[in-house]
């Protein structure tokens, strides 16, 4: 298993849209439906020898939200970039994300081309 982009969103529509948008990057995409699901899947992937190249995470999710996911993820991985993809546009929430360890913040709606450009910046 090589590099993997983990897409974390409770909306199946958004997860599939992001995966389709990222096809052109050639990087394998895995999906998780909340922060806890992502942590579990990331552990499975890294235990199997895979490498998480980037996480793209929503904020408002049940079970574990995006901010808590970033905080937990940063306990085990300080360097892999996490880009938030959300409808949340309030400065306070963006600041919380930045303090938790987010690398970037994309406010929906997104266009595929812009998402690909952000990914290319973080995934070499």
């Amino acid at each position, binding site marked *: 298993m090589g590099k993997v982009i983990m897409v974390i969103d409770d909306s199946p529509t958004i997860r599939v849209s992001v995966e389709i948008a990222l096809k052109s990057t050639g990087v394998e995409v895995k999906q998780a439906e909340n922060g806890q699901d992502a942590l579990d899947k990331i552990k499975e992937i890294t235990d199997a020898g895979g490498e998480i190249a980037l996480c793209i995470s929503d904020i*408002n999710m049940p079970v574990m939200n995006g901010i808590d996911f970033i905080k937990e993820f940063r306990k085990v991985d300080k360097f892999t970039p996490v880009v938030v993809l959300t409808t949340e546009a309030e400065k306070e929430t963006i600041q919380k994300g930045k303090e938790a360890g987010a690398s970037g913040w994309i406010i929906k709606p997104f266009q595929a081309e812009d998402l690909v450009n952000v990914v290319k910046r973080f995934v070499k």
Partner: protein
Amino acid sequence: MLKSGNNETGKTAFLIYPGEYFATRGDVFISTIVGSCLAVCLFDVSEHIGGMVNFVVPGGKVTRDIHESEISRIGVLNMEYLIGEMVKLGSNRKHMVSKIFGAAFLSDESTSTHKLAEDNLEFVSKYFHAEKIRLVNSDLGGEFRRKLYFSPLDGKVWRKKLINNEEVSEFAILEEEYVRKEFRERDRKGSIFLFD
């Protein structure tokens, strides 16, 4: 959005205008008037949280898959605004059911409203299928506007057909302006911030 007392029931009512959404777990009413737009009511049967959004998908025909369509993108965004608010209140989309209203073919407007209504119906059908959100009731089409009262505490909706399009002059104007604006700005995109 307009917050007001409801004299008949004693409950507070939140009146949402075209393009707005509201979610709560309170014992209140969420109300709107919908014409060619869509009013979607979502109810979390587990947490008893409800919300309503009144929006339009500024489409031409949704010819591509919902995941790739530039037009559906705005419809998905509107649904995400509402669902995001409900999730913040403790809801989970897996426990949500939906009721949808509107998409009227209004004779007092241009014939393009027929196509608009069809496109909106196609979007919600595909969206709820993709999201696995069960549609429990719908009242769509027709040549009249609808006045809705939604109880987010139990998911019930009271619908009045405005056959003579009474009570709607303000809403009719606002809806027309909103639809025009959504078409004008349908290629919009959100901001991107990259942190050091």
